[in-house]
Every structure is written in C-alpha cells, then in structure tokens.
C-alpha cells in the first residue's frame, strides 16, 4: 500500500481557487475510483469532485468552507502500489493544520486520572469506524409546515403591524414558507397597497434598519472574480447599432418548421451565438487573452454564455461554437442553459471558454458596459430588440421606416485590442446579424 495526495483539479483557466463544500466521504471510507468525494464550489460551477483512484481515504486537509488554491492537496488516500506508481502526482501532502476551534487541544490527554490515560487501540478503532447513520440528529422535514401556508408567530405579528398581506409575499423558507426575513424584505421595499401604520413603530420593529447579508461562497467567488478583472484589465467600450429586422422576420417565419425539423426552439441566442462565433473566427485578436505580458491567440472558439442561475451568474461554454450551424447551436444551447439554471453544470460544461456572450437584452437592457470574464480579451452584450423609427435609403431616396433595432456592446482589453480592431470585430458581428432575411436557409 502507498499513500498519495489528492489534488484539487484545475477547473478552467480563469479559476485560481475554490471553496470546499461538503465532504461526501470521510477518512476511513473505502472509495471506488470516480466515487463522488467532495463538493467543490467555484465562481463558475459547483461540482462533485470524483475520487481519482480506488483505495481508502485516510486524511482530509481542507475543511468545509475553506478556500483552497487549485492544485493544492486537499486529502490523502491509501492505494495499492501499482496505482501509486501509475499516479501522476505522488508528492507528499503539505497538510495545513486541521481547522478546529483554536481553544481545543488536539489529542489532549483527558483520561480519568488526568495524566496517564491513553488507549491507542480504541483511537484506531474510532478512526476506522464505518460511516455513521443511525443516531444522527433527526432531519425529517416537518411535513405539516412544508405543505401548508403556515405563518410563524413573528411573521404574523410583523405582517399585522406593518400592514403586509402575507399572501403576496414570496417565501424562501423550507417548502416556500414565508420567513421573518421575507417579511422584513417586504417591509424594506415598502408595502404597495396598505396605508402606513397608524401606531408608532414598536421598539423591536426592524423597519429602517440596515441588514447585513453574509454572501454565499458563489457570491464571494463572483465578487473576487469581478475585482480581479476590473483591477487587472484596462477596459474600453464600443457600442454598435444593428438592424435586426431581417433576422426577426427569419425567426418568425421559420420557427415552427425549425422546431419540427431540429427539435429545438429557434432562439435569438442561437442567432447571436452563431454570428459572434463567426465574427470571432474572422477577428482572432478578440478571441485571445493577455498572459504574462504576451497575447495568446486561442486556437478554438469556445463561446461562454452568461446565464443567471439562482445562486448567481454562471458561464457555461459551447466548445467550437464556430463549427456549428444554427441548428447545432440551438440544440446545444437549450440543455446547457437548463443545466446552468438548475445548478447541475458539470466540469466540461464550464471549461475552456475563450470569449463571453451576454444576452442582457433578455432583461430589458438597451445599453451595457459589461466586465470582461477574466482572462478573456473581450465580452459582448446583445441588448433588447426594440422597434424604432429609422432613416433608411429606399427606392425614393431617404425614408423613415419602422425597424427592429438592437445595440451590441463590447467591453475589451485595451492592452490587446485598440478601437480599430474592436470596430472591425463589431462590424463583422453586425454583418452576420444583418445578413438574415425571412427566407434565409437555416442549417
């Protein structure tokens, strides 16, 4: 038998650290290769990290909630010799001290006589005990609470005192229960239909008080990632208007047929992804990154799509997006976005992105200044498609027409790209989008 360290894998080139979630195996557990070992949270994805080998987990070095750099040894396992020799990484772990409350002394002698009690046989027995199940605290959900619309005393009191109709409050507790925090949030935004309370606020009322929210691990990772991007990358911006009338007509005319033929909805995102991938192929400088003072042109066009998931922004990636037609993209985007929204992205889903497309138009935005997804060279947002009166050149000269217009906004790394290259890319993107007509052939 031999002991080998288990390293946290690299999960995408822009990710430098991850937060350790719940350990799914404990020291002493026998693990099969690919058994889920531990949950790992990064700003891109939450994943279950599989055991790299078959063997016995012997030690855990990174506790739940610890932030750990990529490549750090987070645990040790015992494997047979052949496996150990085959394993790429065999370096001994540099183990951080176990994360205990500072006042507890590990291995303190606590025997009844205070000086001599020590039974290593028992300690080994405990260390090797099987996973426990039976006597853990009862975690059966309270079904009565989970099923009905039941209000706790404090929720009822706060709602009554502040004139809040609880039926209109969205519950975030278990089973959709309305929590005290939900009512306080409603109080903070102000009740829309109810007159102000006639009585002065009671002393324990929390109206008007600031509330401090502890960010979730994902929220913190996003925050760190954004700060890193803004502080390292000199951002510059460019916005271009696109006439989407032809594309809109194409989509309207062919949506039905497309669904029948390809089994996927013909979304605007499929069109914009298609167009941006082609524009990236023609403008390799935009599909690059600044690495150690050099510009690295990416060999593939791996298009990241910014998706608003419940926990925060995630960016699943369509690998080789420039090699797909509209149908291929539509078929690949739908399940990917669904996985992103349900929090079930896998590691390959988020790896290797070279450029990011953010469809902020879906949120009603008409102009944006996005932060680049570090270390990529640029990010583009596609804004709302809005019908506007536009001067066009018609058969009888200049005329005013109603056209479906959309802004596309680029944020780019000014170390790599100047305004000229940015404009060239934007014009390519614009040309691709404006090339569609109602009877264009969709492949």
């Amino acid at each position: 038998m031999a002991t080998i360290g288990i390293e946290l894998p690299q999960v995408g080139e822009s990710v430098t650290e991850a937060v350790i979630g719940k350990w799914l195996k404990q020291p002493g557990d026998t693990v099969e290769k690919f058994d889920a070992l531990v949950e790992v949270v990064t700003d891109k994805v939450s994943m279950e990290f599989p055991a790299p080998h078959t063997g016995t987990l012997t030690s855990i070095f990174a506790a739940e909630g610890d932030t750990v750099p990529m490549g750090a040894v987070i645990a040790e396992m015992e494997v047979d010799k052949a496996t150990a020799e085959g394993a790429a990484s065999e370096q001994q772990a540099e183990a951080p001290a176990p994360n205990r409350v500072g006042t507890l002394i590990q291995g303190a002698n606590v025997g009844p006589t205070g000086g001599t009690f020590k039974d290593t046989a028992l300690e080994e027995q405990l260390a090797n005990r099987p996973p426990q199940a039976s006597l853990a605290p009862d975690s059966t959900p309270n079904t009565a609470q989970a099923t009905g619309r039941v209000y706790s005393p404090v929720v009822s009191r706060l709602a009554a005192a502040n004139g809040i109709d609880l039926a209109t409050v969205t519950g975030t507790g278990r089973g959709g229960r309305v929590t005290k925090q939900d009512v306080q949030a409603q109080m903070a935004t102000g009740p829309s239909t109810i007159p102000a309370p006639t009585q002065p606020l009671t002393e324990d009322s929390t109206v008007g008080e600031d509330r401090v929210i502890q960010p979730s691990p994902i929220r913190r990772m996003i925050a760190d990632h954004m700060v890193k991007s803004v502080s390292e990358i000199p951002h510059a911006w460019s916005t271009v208007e696109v006439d989407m009338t032809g594309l809109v007509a194409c989509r309207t005319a062919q949506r039905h047929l497309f669904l029948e033929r390809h089994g996927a909805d013909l979304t605007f995102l499929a069109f914009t992804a298609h167009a941006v991938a082609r524009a990236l192929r023609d403008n390799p400088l935009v599909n690059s990154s600044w690495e150690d003072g050099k510009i690295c042109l990416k060999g593939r066009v791996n298009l990241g799509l910014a998706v608003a998931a419940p926990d925060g922004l995630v960016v699943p990636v369509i690998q080789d997006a420039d090699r797909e037609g509209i149908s291929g993209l539509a078929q690949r985007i739908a399940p990917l976005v669904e996985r992103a929204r349900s929090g079930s992205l896998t590691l390959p889903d988020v790896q290797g992105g070279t450029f990011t497309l953010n469809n902020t138009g879906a949120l009603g935005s008409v102009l944006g200044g996005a932060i680049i997804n570090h270390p990529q060279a640029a990010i583009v947002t596609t804004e709302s498609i809005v019908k506007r009166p536009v001067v066009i050149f018609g058969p009888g000269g200049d005329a005013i027409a109603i056209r479906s217009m959309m802004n596309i906004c680029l944020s780019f790394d000014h170390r790599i790209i100047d305004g000229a290259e940015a404009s060239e890319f934007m014009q390519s993107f614009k040309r691709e989008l404006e090339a569609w007509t109602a009877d264009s052939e969709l492949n």
Partner: protein
Amino acid sequence: MAEMTVIEAVREALREEMERDPVVFTMGEDIGARGGVFLATEGLLDQFGPERVIDTPLAEAAIGGIALGAAVNGMRPVAEIEFGDFIWPAVNQIIGEAARVRYGTQGRRTAPLVLRVPYGGGVRGGLFHSQSIEVAFSHQPGLKVVAPATPYDAKGLLKSAIRDDDPVIFFEHKRTYRLVKGDVPEGDYTIPIGKADVKRTGTDLTVVSYGLVLHYCLEAAETLMAEGIDVEVIDLRTLRPLDTDTVLESVRKTSKAMIVHEDTKAGGIGGEIAAVIAEEAFEDLDAPVKRVAGPEVPAMPFSPLLEAEFMPSAEKIAAAMRELAAY
C-alpha cells in the same frame, strides 16, 4: 494574561481563594497526597497543610454532610465529589438540607459551601464515570448551579462560588480539563453567577449551550459562517439561576433558537429554556425551538463507537443548525 487549561484555572482559583481567606478549605477523595484524580488540588497539601486540604473516605454522604456542617458554622468548604456519577449518596445533604438552610432559618443562617463536581463524557469513562447529572440539581431552588466551559470562566466563577453565601454546585466537564486552553488574567477577578455570555454574535439563529459541547457549537458556527449562515452562540455558564434575559434578547433578534447539551433530552435544561422562550418570546419565533441532546439511553455507553454516537459533535450540531436556518 497567561494561557492555561481548565484544570489549571480551577487549581489557581482554589489556591488564590485559600490564600485570600483562611476559612476556605478543601476536602474530598484522593485530593491530598494524590492531588486529586484530575490533579485539581495538586500542590495544595504542601502549601496549606492537612488541616485545610483533607482527604476523606470514599463516602459522598459524609463529604456532603461535613461540608454542610462546616459551612453553617462559619467555614467555606470546597468539597470535591471525585466523579459526579457517585454524588447520589450526598443528595439528601445537598437538596434535602443545604438548599433549605437560608429558607428554613428565615435568613438567619446560610450554607456557603461549594461542591466541585467533575462530570460528562467523551472520556471513555463508560457507565460510571461519564454522566451528565447537572439537571438534577438545577431543578432545586436554594441551590446555585454553575457549569463553565472555558479556563477564564472556570477561574472567575469558582472564585464567585467560594465567596457566595449559598450552596453552589460547581460542575466541571472532565473532557474540557485538558482539551480547552485559553487566556486567563493574572490575579484576582470574579465572574458573576447567573450571567450568561454571548460567545459569538450572529444574526440568523441563536444556539444556547454550556460545557464541552459549547465548543462544538462554536466550531459548527464557524463552519456555517462559510455557508452564509450567521449563528449566535450563548454560553449559559450558570444553570441556576438561568440568565433568561440574555437568551430572550438573542432569540428576539434571531427568531430561531436551538439548545445543545450532552445530557439526554427529556426533562433536560433544553426543555426549560425552550419553555421560557415559548412563554416570553412566542411572538418573536419564526421556527420551532430545536434541541440537540444525548440519546435516550440510561448511561454513557462504554463502547467507543457508541460513545461517539452518544456525544453531540460539531458535525451533528452543524447539520441541525442548517436545518433550522433553512426552515
């Protein structure tokens, strides 16, 4: 500030009180030449002599009775019950007599005695050296019951107990003796009996605990901090009289309460605190009060595996905290 263990803090409090006041003396099984089985009284015999550091027979009824007799006659005995598991023969002397002295004499006499009682499990003590018995005395008006968790609290509270004019049962968790280390100020200081301590402030839920498992609660609270759940942890420190003000103030803030103790659940301190919360803070509650406690078995099991199952752990407590936070 010196860093010391709980056992060192107890020893220092005893030594300083015996130096300060000549009517303070200590007695118990093996406490003299042996220095006590946990070495709480180590060195005291040499310093204060056999008249003030008295080895007794293995007879808890006698220890309780002698301490009571000395106390009502102007002495301040600090008697050690070697293991809390064996306190029962002294219950008549403690509950039947000592607790009633002030009341029964209309305040003309008091019984200023301290019983130091090592208690609790997690030490491989099995059925006869591991029990949590504090609730039996916490039920009794006329007694004060103290159960510190840290060296700082142990020293300050033991001094207060010795200076108190009423009988104080001073529970020391055996596993904290050498497991818990902390800063203790040099020289004389006291901590008032009957005052809980907010060991960690938080906004999302209130956890009330004492003794060894308080430290597991703090550990679990750290774990949950990383998950975005901010837990307030209250160390009761005194079990009678209960500092209900501190508990209620916290519960009114967080609206969710959990009590954690190693003792079994039914009829435990947790039930009393839950009842106080229900009586006084019902309209502030946003979830049912939760208890994490030892299982319904007659004693701490001897098997190491079963003992580990019996004891609340940071993991079990964290799981319960998550559940309550998500309610």
